[in-house]
């Protein structure tokens, strides 16, 4: 197992270096002079320009500049925002809980609905239930989620007036963040209605972000389940006279879940891409919106740092999924 762990960690190193090269190149590939972009000042004098050039190290050989940048990354120095002058890492971690909370709710929503739906479709294979579940899943999979979010706002916020349109909690409530997770913080604050407000703000974004993972999980569960239902041990369990729910819920599901767990883990990339859109629609103050805003504000050091942080995050989660899979399924480890 240790060897397996080691082999998986080793391959991440070149990938991380590649990610850092892309981020490093990004600022230098932008149209215009990187110094003017970073300085954000107009009408620079020549002395000031040279000063900035030296300050940012642009006067040194490109390889030295890169190694310096990489060393910075490894020691947690992701530069500072051009706009706010705060450290990029600090900004990232102040917004990350919002994205984590939303993504967590979305994936739980997707799994709680997707796994039973996929099971039902597999058990009732070929029936009208199967067809409608799979049809719905395909619609979900094809959904432009930025439009889906707007539709839900029209219906639930506009017509019915049930849910708020944007943000994480109503302005009526204010309390200092403890964990950064609004659901926990609002419950801890002890203010009446705060928790309910947080929940009502979370519902629509959760549905929107969870839609595509839900469709993927339902499809994956169905096909994994169909495969398992054809196995000998399932037939044996049936032949023993076990009730169908026991065969399906216990014998089959346990094995069918292995690929499904992997699928859930691999949705992180999908969730991050979805967070960019979902957070933009609902003004959710997470890292997706942070990245989009930074692109528009031309806060390029933030974009640069965010790229590395998000890619690293996805790499680590994928590594975790890989290890978990190796743990559940020993056959994988041998390769």
């Amino acid at each position: 197992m240790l060897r397996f762990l080691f082999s998986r960690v080793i391959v991440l190193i070149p990938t991380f270096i590649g990610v850092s090269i892309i981020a490093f190149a990004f600022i230098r590939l932008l149209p215009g002079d990187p110094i003017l972009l970073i300085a954000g000042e107009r009408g620079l004098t020549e002395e000031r320009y040279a000063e900035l050039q030296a300050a940012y190290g642009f006067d040194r050989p490109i390889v030295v500049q890169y190694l310096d940048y990489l060393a910075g990354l490894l020691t947690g120095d992701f530069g500072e925002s051009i706009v706010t002058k705060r450290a990029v890492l600090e900004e990232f971690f102040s917004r990350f809980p919002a994205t984590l909370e939303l993504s967590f709710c979305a994936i739980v929503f997707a799994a709680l609905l997707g796994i039973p739906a996929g099971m039902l479709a597999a058990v009732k294979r070929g029936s009208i239930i199967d067809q409608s579940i799979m049809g719905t899943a395909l619609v979900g999979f094809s959904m432009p989620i930025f439009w889906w979010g707007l539709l839900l706002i029209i219906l639930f916020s506009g017509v019915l007036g049930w849910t708020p349109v944007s943000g994480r909690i109503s302005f009526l409530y204010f309390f200092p963040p403890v964990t950064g997770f609004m659901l926990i913080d609002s419950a801890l604050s002890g203010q009446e209605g705060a928790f309910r407000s947080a929940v009502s703000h979370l519902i629509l974004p959760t549905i929107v972000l969870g839609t595509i993972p839900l469709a993927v999980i339902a499809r994956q569960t169905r096909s994994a389940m169909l495969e398992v239902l054809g196995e000998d041990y399932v037939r044996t369990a049936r032949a023993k006279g076990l009730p169908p729910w026991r065969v399906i819920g216990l014998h089959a599901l346990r094995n069918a879940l292995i690929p499904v767990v992997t699928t859930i883990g691999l949705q992180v990339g999908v969730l991050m891409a979805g967070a960019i859109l979902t957070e933009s629609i609902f003004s959710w103050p997470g890292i997706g919106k942070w990245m989009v805003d930074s692109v528009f504000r031309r806060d390029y050091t933030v974009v640069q740092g965010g790229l590395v942080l998000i890619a690293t995050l996805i790499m680590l989660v994928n590594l975790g999924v890989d290890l978990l899979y190796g743990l559940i399924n020993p056959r994988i480890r041998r390769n």
Partner: protein
Amino acid sequence: MSSADDFSNGRSGQWSPWRAMLAEFWYYFSENKGAVAGLFVFIALVVIALLAPFVAPHDPVIQNRDALLLPPFWQEGGSTTYLLGTDPVGRDMLSRLIYGARFSLFIGVVVVIGALTVGITIGLIAGYFRGWIDIVIMRVMDVILAFPSLLLALVLVAVLGPGLINAMIAIALVYQPHFVRLTRASVMAEKTKDYVVSSRVVGAGPLRLMVRTILPNCLAPLIVQATLSFSSAILDAAALGFLGMGAQPPTPEWGTMLAEAREFILRAWWVVTFPGLAILITVLAINLVGDGLRDALDPKLKRS
């Protein structure tokens, strides 16, 4: 005379297995009713896109100041001049949607062709030659895949400058690793098979082996992936348009139309509903076809 006969005989001899394959393909494909329905919708969209100047009732960019935010004809205040209503500056929704089909299909075609050709070429090289060149290529692909595709596309467009063409380049670049991986895996699986070895023994060079001998036998998964990429490209391009980084106004691209309509969502449902519905229908139709293609082309899944 006789040589011409030989030639035509040879040709027909070459063509009939193709025809048989096509017939077999259609047999399996047409069993999937959803796929056939998706194909018909897709064909209809292509026809509409090609004939846009003839079927669109109005010019998609001309503004009518007397008809701002008119509802669709069935609602009170709507008129049959503007069947699906007008947008905030008085442009005909239906015409814009019809012209929008051109952009979306064009985006899909260009992105898929770009990602496919680059991906297949790189994948063939990696899978055929292996060694250090393979390692380098695959590590580079890992790096691209480490980013969420939409984020990388967004950042690339920030570098290249917002616009439809740059959005397409960015999306194609982000998608090609999937084709590289697929091609490489199939090439590696096919390379040691007897038919490849025998044509190598007969004296076929690497280029011929790669392109003529191996590639045709790797096509099935690539075709399925290409359909998937086609629909994802339409979604991602629309998403970029929605974020303001794709096609720029007044281009009647569906995602861009949504972005322009956003502030009117609670006042005029139609300016938001129709462009998104158009995206959904197009993407759904292509995904239905993709599912059918997978069933028909993948022998492992066939009648399992």
